C-alpha cells in the first residue's frame, strides 16, 4: 500500500495543516478522540507525541503536556493499544513523534510491527542523527514503508540539506528559526528569506514549516512559502484551556487557523 503521507502530498499541494498533540493529554483516554475530532475538522495530517521525561527539542508547553500525560499513566505500550481501532475512522497520515531512547527501550522490531498493525505512516525523532539512521535503522524502516522525517534549520548548510533531502521520504520538516518548540510569535523577514532560500533549492521532498506557527497569520505565511505547516504548542495550549467539550475546542482551533483559506 502506498504510504498515506505520499498520497496526501500527491493530492494536495498547498495549505496542508499538520497538527501535533501529546498522547494521553489532557486526559489519558483523549488520544483517539482528539484524532477523530481533528479529522472531522479538516486537519490533513497528525503528529502524535509520545510523552517523554526529557524532551530536549521541546519548549515548556509541550514538556508540561508530556509530564502531565506521564502522570496520567501514558506509555508507548498503552499508546499502541489506544490506536488499535484508529484506522476504522480516519485516513489521515499519522506520525509518531518521540525520542530515540523510547524506541531503543521498546525494541525497534516490536516498534515497527506495532506501527504497521495500527497504521502509523511516519516517524519524527529529533535526536536521531542521519548517520545512525543510515547505519542502524534505514533498512528496517524502509522495508516497512515507514517514512522518517528529518529536520532542517536556518543553520543547516546547503550540502547537508541536499543529503537530508536524498535520505528523506514523505516531507522535510523546516524548523522556522533557531528555537525550541513554542518559542516565537511573529515571522520575521529573515525567516521568510530562509523559507524562500529553501524553496528555491527545488528539493525532491515537500516541505512543512514548524516551530512558532501558532495562528492563522503565521500559518498563512508558512503556507505561502511551503506546502503547509505544523502547529504544536498553540494547539496544546488550546487543549489545556479546554473545559469539557474537546471536540468543540478542536473544531474551533482548526477553524481559526484555517480561517478564510478553508474552502
Amino acid at each position: 500500500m502506498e504510504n498515506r503521507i505520499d498520497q496526501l502530498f500527491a493530492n494536495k499541494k498547498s495549505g496542508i495543516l499538520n497538527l501535533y498533540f501529546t498522547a494521553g493529554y489532557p486526559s489519558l483516554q483523549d488520544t483517539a478522540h482528539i484524532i477523530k475530532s481533528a479529522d472531522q475538522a479538516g486537519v490533513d495530517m497528525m503528529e502524535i507525541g509520545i510523552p517523554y521525561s526529557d524532551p530536549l527539542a521541546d519548549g515548556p508547553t509541550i514538556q508540561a503536556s508530556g509530564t502531565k500525560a506521564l502522570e496520567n499513566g501514558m506509555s508507548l505500550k498503552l499508546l499502541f493499544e489506544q490506536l488499535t481501532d484508529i484506522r476504522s475512522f480516519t485516513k489521515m497520515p499519522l506520525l509518531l513523534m518521540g525520542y530515540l531512547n523510547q524506541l531503543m527501550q521498546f525494541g525497534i522490531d516490536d516498534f515497527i510491527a506495532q506501527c504497521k498493525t495500527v497504521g502509523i505512516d511516519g516517524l519524527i525523532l529529533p535526536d536521531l542523527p542521519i548517520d545512525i539512521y543510515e547505519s542502524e535503522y534505514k533498512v528496517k524502516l524502509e522495508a516497512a514503508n515507514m517514512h522518517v522525517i528529518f529536520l532542517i534549520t536556518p543553520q543547516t548548510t546547503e550540502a547537508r540539506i541536499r543529503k537530508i533531502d536524498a535520505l528523506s521520504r514523505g516531507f522535510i520538516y523546516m524548523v522556522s528559526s533557531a528555537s525550541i518548540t513554542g518559542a516565537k510569535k511573529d515571522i520575521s523577514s529573515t525567516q521568510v528569506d530562509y523559507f524562500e532560500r529553501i524553496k528555491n533549492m527545488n528539493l525532491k521532498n515537500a516541505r512543512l514549516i514548524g516551530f512558532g506557527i501558532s495562528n492563522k497569520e503565521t500559518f498563512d505565511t508558512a503556507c505561502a512559502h511551503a506546502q503547509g505547516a505544523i502547529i504544536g504548542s498553540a494547539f496544546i495550549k488550546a487543549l489545556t484551556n479546554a473545559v469539557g467539550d474537546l471536540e468543540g475546542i478542536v473544531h474551533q482551533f482548526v477553524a481559526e487557523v484555517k480561517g478564510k483559506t478553508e474552502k
Partner: protein
Amino acid sequence: MTFQIDKNGFYGEFGGAFVPEMLFGNVEELQNRYLSIMEEADFQKEFQALLKDYVGRPSPLYFAKRLSKKYQAKIYLKREDLNHTGAHKINNTIGQILLAMRLGKTRIIAETGAGQHGVATATVCALMGMECIVYMGEVDIARQAPNVSRMRMLGAKVVPALSGSRTLKDATNEAIRDWIANPVNTHYIIGSVVGPHPYPDMVARFQSVISEEMKWQLKEQTGSENPDMIIACVGGGSNAAGAYYHYLDETSTRLVAVEAAGLGIHSGHSAATSVLGSKGIIHGQRTILMQTDDGQIVEPYSISAGLDYPGIGPMHAHLIDKGRAEVVNATDQEALDAAFELTRLEGIIPALETAHAFAALPKLKYNPRDVIVINLSGRGDKDLATYVKHLPDGE
C-alpha cells in the same frame, strides 16, 4: 585494544552525538576544531600558565600516613581540593573558556548540580569578562546555597531549572535548550565527561592533567609511575576520567569507580547508575542510564548533589562494560562516615561527592604493599551544613 575514543566519537558502542538538528552546526564545529585548537602552541601556553598561576597547579600528591596505617596500604591523595574554587572542575572550565574565545563566542552557558562547576564557570567568565548564565535545578539551588551566592558574586546569572525533577538532569536540558535558541554567539561549557561528542573526550583531555601529574609525582615519591589502584567517585565522571586518563591502557593499574548508592542500591533512592541502568540515550550520548521499561529517564537520588546524575559518561560505560574499571557503591551514610574519618585522621574535609571515593576503602581487596591513589576531587566547605547535621553522637 585501546580505551580511548574512536574517530567517530565512540568508546566501543557508547558515545556519539545524538543531537537535534538545531544543535548540529555547533556540535560539528566543536568536533572539527577542538583538537586543532587544543594543539595550538598559543593555546597550550595560555592554558598551562593559567593552570599554574591561577589554579595553583600542580596539585600536591600527598601520602596519607594515618589513613594508610588504618587501611594497611600506601594511600596517596591527589589534592584537587586545593585548586582555586575548591575542586577539579576548574581544569575543564579554564580549557573551555580559552576554546570558546578562539571560536569567537561571547556568551557562556553552563549547567550545575552541586554548584562546583557553576562556580568554576562563573570564575573563568569573570576572569575573561564573558557573559555567564548558569542553569541549576530549583531543588539544588535550595540545598547548595553557598555556591549560588558565590556564582552571583562572580557576576553569573543563575537561572532555576523548573522543569521535570528540577535537578541536574533538568538543568542540563535547560542549558541545551538555551544553546538551541542561541546557536551563534554561545558556547556551552559542559561540566562533566558527558554530552554529545566531542564533549566527553574534550573534558577528559582538559582533566587529564590530573593523571599527567600523578605519573611524575608517583615516580618521585614511590619510584614508579604506575600505582596499583586509582579510586575516584563517579557521577558523570569527570574527576575519574582525569585521574584514569593516562592509565587507561596501563592495565596493571586497577581503576575503581565509586557510585553513590544513596539510601541503598535497591532502595528506590539511589544513583548507582551502572548497577541500575541500561543502555540508552541521554543528553546527546549513548550510554548507561537509569530509566523505566518505557524509556523514561529516572530521577536518581544521592545526599551529594554532584553525584545524582542518571547516566555516566560514555568512557566509563565502556570501561565498566569491558571490565577495565570496577565499580564500588557507597551509601549516604558510608560517605558521611568516610568524610568524618578522613577529617579526623588527616585534617582534610572532603566534598560529599569525594567522600564516596574514600568509602570504597573498606570494600576493596588489596595488598599492604599496594600503592593506592584516591582522587580528592573537592573540598567540603560547601557541605558543612550537611556534615554538621550528621556529626557523630555527643559532639
